């Protein structure tokens, strides 16, 4: 699981990761299996993730929350993106729509407990799991890395979310 590099540390516990791209692949129900397989192959993932799962890809990760959608988060802007013919689905660039925050464990577990109704215990939310939830009423996508929690947050809310998380971390 990617868990290092390219991290601009703002505080020891919470940081924002930049320089990544996010691409959404939405496949039609009848073609999802084949479309998803070709996307996984193209981006170097070992398999197609099931809903709620993150799979490591060649230069990023392949995420799946929605039954018909895959998100490819790449930590580099280089390389050619997989494409989908309109008969199979559509592709959408969401790279500018989110901010990616990373919070060190175990502080991240406390933050989840304070701001989300998600069960943060390891068996319920292991490394490789991805969840859509809300923190401080903000819709966020979370996944667990080996030593961090990744939070994909709508860009317009990111400053507000970061402020409230950092304040909570300061208070312990």
């Amino acid at each position, binding site marked *: 699981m990617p868990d290092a590099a390219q991290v601009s540390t703002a505080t020891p516990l919470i940081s924002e990761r930049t320089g990544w791209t996010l691409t*959404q692949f*939405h496949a*039609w129900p009848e073609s999802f299996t084949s479309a998803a397989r070709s996307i996984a192959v193209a981006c170097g993932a070992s398999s197609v993730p099931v809903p709620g799962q993150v799979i490591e890809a060649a230069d990023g990760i392949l995420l799946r929350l929605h039954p*018909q959608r895959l998100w490819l988060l790449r930590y580099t802007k280089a390389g050619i993106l997989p494409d989908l013919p*309109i*008969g199979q*689905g*559509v592709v*959408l*660039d*969401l*790279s*500018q*729509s*989110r901010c990616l925050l990373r919070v060190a464990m175990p502080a991240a577990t406390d933050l*989840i*407990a*304070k701001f*989300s*109704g*998600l*069960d*943060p*215990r390891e068996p*319920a939310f292991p490394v490789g799991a991805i969840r859509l939830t809300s923190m*401080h*009423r*903000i819709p966020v996508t979370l996944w667990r890395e080996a030593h961090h929690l990744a939070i994909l947050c*709508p*860009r*317009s*809310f990111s*400053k*507000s*979310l970061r*402020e*409230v998380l950092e*304040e*909570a971390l300061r*208070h*312990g």
Partner: protein
Amino acid sequence: MSTGFRLQQGGRIDRNSEYRFNFDGQAMTGHAGDSLASALLANGIQFVARSFKYHRPRGIMSAALEEANALVTLGEGAHSLPNSVVTTEELHDGLTAHAQHCWPSLKVDFAAVNQVFASLLGAGFYYKTFMGPGRSPKNWLFYEHFIRRAAGLGKAAREPDPDQYETVNAFCDLLVIGSGPAGLEAARIAAEAGLDVILAERDFELGGALLTNTGTIDQQPAAQWLASRLGTLNKSANIRILKRTTAFGLYDGTVAGLVERRDPVKAATIPWRERFWIVRAKRIIIAAGAMERPLLFAGNDRPGIMLASAVGSYLNRWAVAPGRRIVLATTNDSAYATARDLAIAGLSVTLIDSRERVSETLHKLANNTGIDLRLGQAIRAALGGRHVRAVDIGPATGQGSITGRLACDIVAVSGGWSPTQHLLSQRGVKPSWNQTLQAFLPGRANEPIDCVGAAAGIWRSDDCARSGRAIAAAAAAALGRKAPVDDIPAPGGWETPIKPVRLASDLNLKKIFVDLQHDVTAADILQANQEGYEAPELLKRYTTLGMAADQGRTSAVPALALLSEMASRSVGEIGTTTFRPPFAPVSIGALAGAERDKHLLPIRRSPLHDVIADSGAHMLETGLWMRPWYYPQTGETVDEAYLREMRQTRDAVGLCDVSTLGKIAVQGPDAGEFLDRIYVNGFKAMKVGMARYGVMLREDGIVMDDGTSWRLSEHEYFMTTTTGNAAKVMAWLEDLLETRWPELRVSVSSVTDQWAGISVAGPRAREILPAHIGGLDFTNEAFPFMAVRTGVFNGVPCRLARISFSGELAYEVYIGASHGPALWHALRNMAKEHGGCAYGLEALGALRIEKGHVGGPELDGRTTLEDLGLGRMASTKKAFIGNILRQRPDLQRADRARLVGLVPVTKGETFKGGAILAEQGQEDGHGLGWVTSVTESPSLGHWIGLGFIQGGLDKWQGKTILAADPIRGRSTLVKIVAPHFLDPEGTRLHA
């Protein structure tokens, strides 16, 4: 024996510590481990409060949460907390407390005069006196003011709460509520079976009844057993122990609400005062014990009359003897242990047992410890003023006269025990009345919630522990774990059955207090019963019994017993009320948690927020968004600024941040068909590279939202919505695709945050854009009105559409969010060079009013296409949502309120949004319409407005009407005109 009220030895207090505290201005000391109540009693303070209605003197009557009397205000100023229960408050150094609900002082309370009028203030007094036939609402409104001043317990601080609070979500396999012998064993067995356990205890010490138990459990001294179990639990990695934590509510899905109080000694290091825990447990075990009930006799509310178990707690846990001569009255076996402990401590004990016979064991206990045991007797009345000084006793049968008077300084009473099953009751589980135990026992829940120990009506400590083990083992098995199986003991455990007490016929019912906190007497209950309020729910509402902060913990069963006696029905037949959350008072601060002040709601910031705010714009909260309101130049007011911004935009060019508009990517082979179904007008046939204004309706035919949709390619549209409706529209589109039209191959995705949006409006817009956006021909021919093009800024692609909300030649430019600030900066500098400026929300709203565009005030959830003058947009060639119901006759009525323009008859006059449009002389009614939006128009030189009036322009054009504004005390004659004030031909935007 002791000197003073504190015994020289014993208890669980730390005598090496000394805490200074203050009650009602009186400085005192106590020890670590004391509660405020134990410290007060140790200092000889028993009288601490006044009762609710009659302001009678009241003392400490319990040692725990069931306390009905001793409510005080803790702390000072903004930190003060009314209605704090002295028995649950942990003593700490510097604690201050004040008596409440008395004036001018606790000892001299003028409102005690109410006792003189007690006979007039019985049940139903308010209803009968102030309401009902012949009493107008005005009477009640007059009296209400005085009644409210007199009512209520304690006063909340007027200042904002300076304390911090937190919310914590927690998950576990098993939540155990209570840490007596049953709770401790349940937690231990579950943890040993591998379950993830949370153990919540209201007290600041674990142990429950074991903290005061001087007997044995599992053949060990109770204290030794407790220490052993605590040692085991503290070492367990599977148990999270929450002390000072009250479980106040159980909700659907085995979700529990808990409030944890901060350890007062650690106040300097723990930032929060209270924490609200939302616990999602797979199973719940309620081990909350039982509550002792008081006895009913005349004067049973006097200070010095306490629950027997409380007297035992003060003696054994806190080494406090609240008196020297103690009369202990009981109906059951439980009080004998307390009597024994009191006698061993050297106190004089007279034990009055209403039963004719007790077991040999209890006889021996009394004989061996020098207790004066009197069987078959009951207290008839307590005598005294601010403290009890004697009791009159008589036969427990209720027949016959008073047989003696006993001098005393403490009366300890035990009228039986009620299992604490409020939490289970909150889940709708009905308890059943056990005549033998004289108690309501918990019913069986359909959810994975169990009661154990005394909460299940099991009285013996050994059996309580065993029930905890047995139920925990069953819970572990249900969750797929193994634990040693044990039998569940049967409820009960006394050698001699409890005896229900009957009221003596010669007692003064008005002096028998059933609900001590709300001053509900036996006479009130009799009266309610006689007036037909026989059901407990009706009795509760008529008399207010059980409605105060203590929620009738000690009064419910005695009241039902009385009702049973009066109605000649069993308690089981009468039933009991349903308890609702919260079980104990919860501060609003705890429920709000950290979501207050600046964190009340999250703030949304546009990609341009920082560059705009840094430029000196005044920002405004609009929903969750922070948006620029206006951009003042030196010394400008908001009015001066927005009018200047409008002039500059109309004369040159203006820039506006439109990033907050909702933006939705609509993709797929059926995207055009989908838009045709949701918009009133057609989009499927629109050419690639063009945009169109669209309106969507709700299913009931009312306008939901409007915006533009751009056709980017054969299979992709870029939809914009209003800022306020963005989330609603997105949810609506997803709902339609997932439930209504799953066959459509369409993907909708919110891209609101993906793009920064800038509107460039004004006659010189065409001059500034080419300087920074390359790859485009901006001529009218190459880039006509409603065309969509792709340009390049600093090598970054951007989308442009020639769209106007202001009525000017205008373009909306969208670029990736991170590039927005650079584009804004470049365009703003260029605009300045051309005599333009940035404009904010105020100017944005004013510009659209001049043009006659509808906005939020007009799209208010009541208006139709026709009301807005947009009826001709509706396609007659396709079906769309809302088309059928918008044709309902009532929505097509010609006299519906329709959109019109408004100008003052006298040009210099102003009028306001919200004013009623009414004919002169009829301003007091509902009027014929209303004003929605107004602004001063620098282009026209006077105020203008939009509004709705019955019949619309067809009926009213050129006529005058009054814009009546009674709330603000202003009325203005206005003329009805077309809503398009400026450039109705569209010359400017097509330029």
